């Protein structure tokens, strides 16, 4: 675990996620939400965020494979989300294309509302607008690993978010 340039340590993550939980709880006071996340990168964030809210909540997961030509959904949600408040939980939003892919898919299930909560957001890279009222931290184009995020499956289980150093894994 040594030698990483840490951008957000465990305490910073814990504090910000607690705040996000409070923001979401306030925004949806008296309601319930369903968190939907895409495996695997957002798993830690989903686990911590869903426990940081004080409103009634549930969660579900989707999985995709990234084929050369098209993304392909390999696991869909099993919960019924029709007429429910849904929050897509993302560990990081850069271009927004992956998040939009998920949003397009979830829209077909007629949720009552559909918003995004991103732990990290890189607004300068974002190509498209997303309904993303909940953002943990803003970042630039620096590539990161840790807290679920990987580089070719390396670094996912790091408890902090660090700058990616590719030479470490080659």
């Amino acid at each position: 675990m040594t030698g990483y340039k840490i951008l957000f340590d465990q305490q910073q993550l814990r504090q910000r996620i607690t705040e996000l939980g409070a923001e979401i709880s306030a925004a949806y006071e008296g309601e319930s939400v369903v968190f939907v996340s895409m495996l695997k990168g957002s798993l830690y964030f989903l686990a911590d965020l869903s426990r940081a809210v004080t409103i009634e909540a549930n969660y579900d997961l989707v999985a995709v494979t990234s084929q050369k030509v098209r993304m392909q959904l390999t696991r869909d949600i099993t919960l019924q989300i029709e007429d429910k408040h849904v929050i897509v939980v993302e560990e990081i939003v850069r271009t927004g294309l992956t998040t939009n892919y998920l949003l397009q898919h979830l829209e077909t299930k007629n949720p009552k509302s559909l918003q995004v909560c991103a732990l990290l957001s890189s607004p300068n890279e974002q190509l498209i607008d997303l309904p993303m009222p909940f953002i943990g931290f803003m970042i630039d184009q620096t590539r990161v690993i840790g807290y679920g995020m990987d580089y070719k499956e390396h670094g996912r289980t790091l408890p902090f978010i660090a700058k990616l150093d590719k030479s470490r894994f080659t």
Partner: protein
Amino acid sequence: MAIITVTRNAGSYGDQISKDVASRLNCEWIDHHLVMEKFIAPIADEQTLRMLQSSPKFFLSETKEGLSFKEYLSGALLEMAERQDAVLVGFAGVLFFQHDPTALHVRLYADRELRVQRTAKIMTCTIPQATQFIQRKDRQMRRFASTLFGAQEEKEHYHVNINTGKVTQNEAVETIVTLFNEMKKTRALETKNIPGSELHTEAYPLLKNESEIEFAKLLDHYELEWRYEPRTFPVEWDAEGRVTLAFSPDFYQPRFDLYLELTTMNQKYVTLKNKKLAKLKTLYPGVNVRIVYKRDFLSMMERFEDDL
């Protein structure tokens, strides 16, 4: 609303394919029998109906309304097309709707020998009987079109000619449904007018360079619908009012009403592009354009490749 007309020779699986298309698009499937039942039966007695069924020349005779049956039917079909999507099979639909820009015209055909074999199997008859049947049906088709319109259904009338001996039924259905849906989206784009800009409705120009091709693939990968350079925005004019500078942003995203302009060129060209963009934002304030700079594009593609 829009119509898909399907011309099919007997034995080309036209009825099944067109029914599947109608089912996929959740719209009505209308064949000869339904046309007679829906539109003609209400205005014709039984004897007239029998005459119309026996020979197409009776479609040129007058109804009680003073129009010919052909004219009456033409009006009724066009009115239906304004209210709903439908798949119209046979009945020289391509000629009834030849001037309707929203209609999609499909011809389903197959090699004659194959059609005979298929017909013999379906009708459980001999090859000579199937051959006779096919010949009679083909003759009836030609006669109907030439009697009512003084013309034949030609290959050039159709948006797409599908040889059902070369593709599966599912492939034929998918082709028709996809094309119909794409045409509808293009029409939706055309109705969104931006004063001063020029809309390109003919075939779009080819993507200009490798970066644009890669970017288009990236958008396809994420199933984000796009159109390439669908509009040109004049941004500078000379004293005579001639356009001296125009901007055709690259990738239009209908979902976001947003243009993404890719730039992977040297700094001096980026400066010109920024100038065009600034002028466009002033002249066309409702138009959303975002520039994707070279560094961002390369970073995006690198991450994309890493994730595969």
